[in-house]
């Protein structure tokens, strides 16, 4: 339609930017209302997130988590599947990571643990996504509702495991024992330190690199393999996909399994990379935020990496805000998040027509000419 005359950068850069700015603007109003100068707050957040190497470390650490949950949501989106279950999939994957780390960590060396952990996280995440996928593909259940339900089911199961199975005797907190060191993913500062680069200690770990690799792989997978072709075909037009011999059941299962696997990798960053033990509710909403990340990143790996960094900034900057302004609630970041999802997801189309119109107006003489030529 009219998008033919609108260049891509309007859609992929200007519109999302306008949406974010709107979200920032509204949250600035909230800041003013609670008595904090939004400019000061922004400064604190910026400084805290990017101003020094520790801030960077935290920002990228959070971003790593979002890369996984964002990619997970996006790959499902390409198949027109709305996977709201990233939260549960990441959570459940934690169980896989914990079991492997706790039971094999003492026996196996680091270099064997790493692939095992990746497999465990991926398998458990994929497994938890597989059931809703199967039910959608075979029985026609609505994947959105099923995955929401599976988040709750995962929460109950994990509570059971943490309280009744994994909690060391005599310990009161619902968390597992600390994993053996051989199952720890090296921290970035240790890793860089080995090469002589100094960096402050932060939770940022090598999973970040793995996240970037995953983003590249997802790109290859979606746009350069026959499976990606099938996923997108199925997403755009299921009946045409069927005509082309694409098995909707297989593709749904494949897509959700890959999506769940990516969500599962979240466990690597947080558990193997930083916490070194399984804790109750350790995903802490990252799975849900993945939806916002994916929306903002326009479901493209490059966009998702950028959006992840933005959200990493919000998280780290937000924590920083809570340190600097003890009076304000760090829930304000939750508000900001909600606004970003609202404006760049739900109200995605609010500014689009006016921005397009503006663009057309600015380049109006050309469009008119085009029409004149056509006539």
């Amino acid at each position, binding site marked *: *339609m*009219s*998008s*033919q*005359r609108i260049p891509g950068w309007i859609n992929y850069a200007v519109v999302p930017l306008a949406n974010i700015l709107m979200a920032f603007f509204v949250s600035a109003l909230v800041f003013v209302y609670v008595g904090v100068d939004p400019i000061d707050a922004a400064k604190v957040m910026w400084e805290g997130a990017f101003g020094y190497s520790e801030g960077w470390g935290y920002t990228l650490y959070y971003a790593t988590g979002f890369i996984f949950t964002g990619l997970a949501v996006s790959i499902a989106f390409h198949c027109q599947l709305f996977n709201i279950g990233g939260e549960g999939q990441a959570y459940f994957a934690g169980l896989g990571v914990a079991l492997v780390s706790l039971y094999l960590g003492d026996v196996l060396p680091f270099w064997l643990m790493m692939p095992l952990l990746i497999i465990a996280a991926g398998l458990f995440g994929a497994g938890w996504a597989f059931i809703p996928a199967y039910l959608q593909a075979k029985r026609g259940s609505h994947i959105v509702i099923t995955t929401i339900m599976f988040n709750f089911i995962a929460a109950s199961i994990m509570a059971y495991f943490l309280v009744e199975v994994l909690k060391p005797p005599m310990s009161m907190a619902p968390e597992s024992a600390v994993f053996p060191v051989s199952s720890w993913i090296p921290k970035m500062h240790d890793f860089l330190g080995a090469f002589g680069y100094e960096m402050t200690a932060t939770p940022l770990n090598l999973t970040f690199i793995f996240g970037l690799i995953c983003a590249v792989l997802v790109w*290859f997978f979606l746009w*350069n*393999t*026959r499976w990606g*072709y*099938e996923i*997108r*075909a199925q997403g*755009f*037009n299921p*009946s*045409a*996909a*069927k*005509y*082309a*011999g694409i*098995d909707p059941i297989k593709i749904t299962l494949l897509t959700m399994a890959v999506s769940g696997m990516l969500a599962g990798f979240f466990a690597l960053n947080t558990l193997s990379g930083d916490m070194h033990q399984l804790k109750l509710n350790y995903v802490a909403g990252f799975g849900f935020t993945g939806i916002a990340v994916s929306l903002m990143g326009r479901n493209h790996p490059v966009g998702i990496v950028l959006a992840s960094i933005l959200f990493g900034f919000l998280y780290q900057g937000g924590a920083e805000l809570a340190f600097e302004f003890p009076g304000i609630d760090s829930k304000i970041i939750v508000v900001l998040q909600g606004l970003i999802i609202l404006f760049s997801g739900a109200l995605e189309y609010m500014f689009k027509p006016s921005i397009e119109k503006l663009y057309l107006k600015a380049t109006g003489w050309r469009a008119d000419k085009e029409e004149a030529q056509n006539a």
Partner: protein
Amino acid sequence: MTDSYAIELQGIDKKFGDVHANKAIDLQVRKGSIHGIVGENGAGKSTLMSIIYGFYRADAGHIRINGKEVRINGSQDAIAAGIGMVHQHFMLVENFTVLENVMLGTEGGAALDKGKVAARAELERLERDYGLEVDPDAIIEELPVGLQQRVEILKALYRGAEILILDEPTGVLTPQETEHLFKILKALRDQGTTVILITHKLREIMAVTDHVSVMRQGGMVAHVDTVDTDRNALAELMVGRKVRFTVDRIAHEAGDVRLKVENLVVEREGVRLINDLSFEVRAGEILGVAGVSGNGQSLLMKVLAGIEGFTSGKITLNGHELLPTTTTSPLVVREMGVGHVPEDRHKMGLINKFDAKEAFIMGYHKSDKYNKGWLQDKKFIRQDTQEKMTTWDVRPDDPDLKTASFSGGNQQKIVIAREVEKNPDVFLVGQPTRGVDIGAIEFIHKRVMDMRNEGKAVLLVSVELDEIMSLSDRIVVMYAGNIVGELKAEAADEKTLGLMMANIMPDDVDTTVKESAHE
């Protein structure tokens, strides 16, 4: 004189994004007349009617009803102005009863139960007066399409429409039903109702209308009185030049049986949609399948193409036997040497958001030719696409252009090129010229005929009788999931086929052909 017009349109203009669906349309419809509107697919007929009915809002222009300028901002304004419309795609709530559908919007008060009593009485009166019987308590989704359409007409009458717009009402009707409908329309006209009728069937235009307007590419190109024109003249007005309906046919002997269907049964949720169907197609012949849509032709094509399974019977495709237990898929069927041009290019044949490169490998995307190990061979795909686009004269010949950006005719060329280039022995073709212009039609018809001449077995499904008659060697007619008769092309004429489509066997038709197919 103004007040002798029920509807006057002046300068109606409408764009959907870049699609200029209506360009400065002027139209006058005389009170108490039946006014036909014709034009190719996509000419803008439905859009124009929807504007009159307030479903869309025009970007510019004036509407006058009975001489008075009105602003129609929504369907409620149109209804208030006495306009009723039967849409091309029915506007019924499927899980509601007939009565509920009819009263929706004119419930007669906030409490439903009282209104229902009154509505039932009025509905029953209308049904009696116009011979439009339907059970008021029947659930819509359980009614056959013919009856659903009655409900649509009843809805309009119930609202007291003085101007009735019907958008392609006969597409889903049998000839008798069409006949009956036309009787009603004439009765309505004689009582002073104004009727606007959109149809593609020029025969119908000649039979029932008083005046005709012709649309082409969003514009209004002619207004004529029906008595002053004929089919050929209308066809010429529609496409802008002389139309040639026939394709040259070389006489030759058909070869071996390439496609054989024996006692095919397809059931869905306990309903037999295809009922004990048998036929065969030989190399070098075109078997045409005629029938009112909805009689199982589409399903038959899907089953043959491996998209859907079947319940019992046997299919032999190019020497490969398929039983209900055989695991097939469109991919497997293609491997057996079958090409398939689906009925609906937007729903099946293409993916609007894919670019031409991707469109050209649909269904063949797994073949080794297009893949190098795990990755697709993008360079080769591009080059291959480029070549095909050039040979098939697809315009513009840009492999990176999104499918949606091609015109209908060129989109259809892409689909046909993709399937023909694989050189299949069995060629399944559904509605190959739906919504494409006459130039493309000639081109496509010629290619289908070439396939026959090259010795392929072609199965052609079409609702266009002209198309069926000009291409086929033999014609079978489907009704309610079965073949009700077979004709040699020479013996076929519209009247005979029409009767057969309504399951009425003219005396001179040899209905024994069906049995002989069993041998």
